[in-house]
């Protein structure tokens, strides 16, 4: 799948932005691209891009993240290296933006540079199974709040509808109606549908542009 130089993932918190960002970065690296991933999350205390630090490092993908991520320091700090994303135009940047409009506020300071270069896609990550975004109308509400806070209009939709490990291919396929309804209402294309790698092939039989995801969160328990 071809992407613009900067790919930004935003959406309702818990929609799956971080996991998708890490997976797409790893995919682009495999294609031979010069990729860097940036964690712009100033909201989440746990389950951050930093959790995948070792895997990203092993793949040779630099991670730009707050030095306080996953620590006990509860401050919304951003690393100075973030400006290199907009300055160094010879590499692809995957940008993981924090949840909701509060998370997207951090994007505002980089928005003028990103808009000026105009080589980006701003993708709205959606999950029909999240309780506050079960339909197109409620998702549009979140979407407008993020655009207002972040200063960059969305260019596409990533349908990441899932129920965690219990997700079936049928769940994902059925959620396409919701993604299409949102697409029709906003005029934004459904850029891709994401699904766990265990069910992605089955989903791909029915839906176009399916991107398989590997579960990134490391856990100390199985059930």
């Amino acid at each position, binding site marked *: 799948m071809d992407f613009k130089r900067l790919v930004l993932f935003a959406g309702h918190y818990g929609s799956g932005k971080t996991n998708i960002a890490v997976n797409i970065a790893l995919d682009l690296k495999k294609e031979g691209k010069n990729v860097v991933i940036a964690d712009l999350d100033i909201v989440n*205390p746990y389950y951050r891009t930093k959790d995948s630090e070792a895997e990203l490092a092993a793949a040779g993908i630099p991670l730009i993240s707050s030095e306080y991520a996953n620590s006990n320091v*509860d401050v919304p700090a951003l690393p100075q290296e973030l400006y290199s994303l907009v300055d160094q135009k010879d590499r692809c940047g995957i940008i993981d933006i924090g949840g909701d409009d509060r998370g997207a506020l951090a994007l505002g300071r980089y928005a003028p540079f990103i808009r000026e270069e105009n080589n980006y896609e701003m993708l709205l990550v959606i999950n029909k*199974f999240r309780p506050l975004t079960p339909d197109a109308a409620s998702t549009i509400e979140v979407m407008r709040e993020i655009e207002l806070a972040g200063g960059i209009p969305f260019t596409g939709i990533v349908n990441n509808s899932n129920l*965690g490990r*219990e997700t*079936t291919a049928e769940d994902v396929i059925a959620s396409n109606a919701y993604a299409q309804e949102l697409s029709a209402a906003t005029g934004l294309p459904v850029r891709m549908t994401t699904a766990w790698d265990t069910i992605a092939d089955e989903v791909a039989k029915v839906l176009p542009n399916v991107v398989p995801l590997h579960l990134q969160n490391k856990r100390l*328990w199985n059930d």
Partner: protein
Amino acid sequence: MADKVLMKGNEAIAEAAIMAGCKFYFGYPITPQTEVAAYMAKRMPKIGGTFLQAESEIAAINMCIGVASTGKRVMTSSSSPGISLKEEGISYMAGCDLPALIVNVERGGPGLGGIQPSQSDYFQATRGGGHGDYHLFVVAPASVQEMVSLTAHAFNVAEKYRVPAMLLADGTLGQMMEPVSIEGITVEDHDKSWALTGTDCKRKHNIINSLSLLPEELEQWNLERYKRYEKIEENEPMWEEYMMDDADVCVVAFGIASRVSRNAIKAARAQGIKVGMIRPITLWPFPKKPLLAAADKVKSFVTVELNMGQMVEDVELATRCKRPILMANRVGGCIPTPEQVLAQIVEANKLGGAQ
């Protein structure tokens, strides 16, 4: 699957409270429980309820006292340092015999501590927490689904006995996402003739108060309250037994520690060690009976905790120190690994005489 949603633990608490008839929420943000307030802020206006971000934790708990006095369901939530601030109000609530739900999504302490998960407020939760002789009804979920069922249950028990209830979780449970169904929530109808609802000049007015001018009267209030506590200890302990039928070693763990312990128990069973688990679901009342019964069957215990050893004291009391007890613990925001728990199970299996 279609009836399920993917929720953070914190969101599940908030939605379950709303489904359990809670229309009033007062809180103040603190990591890692902020999503409870964020969710309430979005949902309460849509259902005609009240969300209010108070100026402090102390203000929030006192607002809860006000609503609880009218007999309406009310909730507040915070994390460890914020709960300490609320303790004065919680003691007043217990002294006024008011039902309410207080949620503590614990983080590492003491002091400002950190924002990563912890179970180090166990003593605070199970011994009352504030001044005076009192208890809270304390539930400890181990999954996002249990965040739903225990939130609803805590409201019912609180009203049944007129006691404040606490849902004690840790940061991991608050932040983790799991598929849940918001179902099976029953709203029990308990006597509210004590509530301040306006007399219409037709009855004597009710008084909600924790101050007594006579020592003998205050003593009677305490004695009456402890009769209700006796009933709670008799009727309300909850626990889950896992692979206990033939166990030689009994793991005792609640909340996220029980999830880690399951992995360790499976690994130990694969090595031929007969180990099971008793998971307290209520922390007060503590499930003393199954633990005492287990002490007559197993040769040793292992407690798994995210603190320096707090629940282990209740296990010692419940089992009357009949068997040796080892502990697998981490503190400061760290979680014990299954390997660490397994190592203690292996050690515990060497202890104690055969029956």
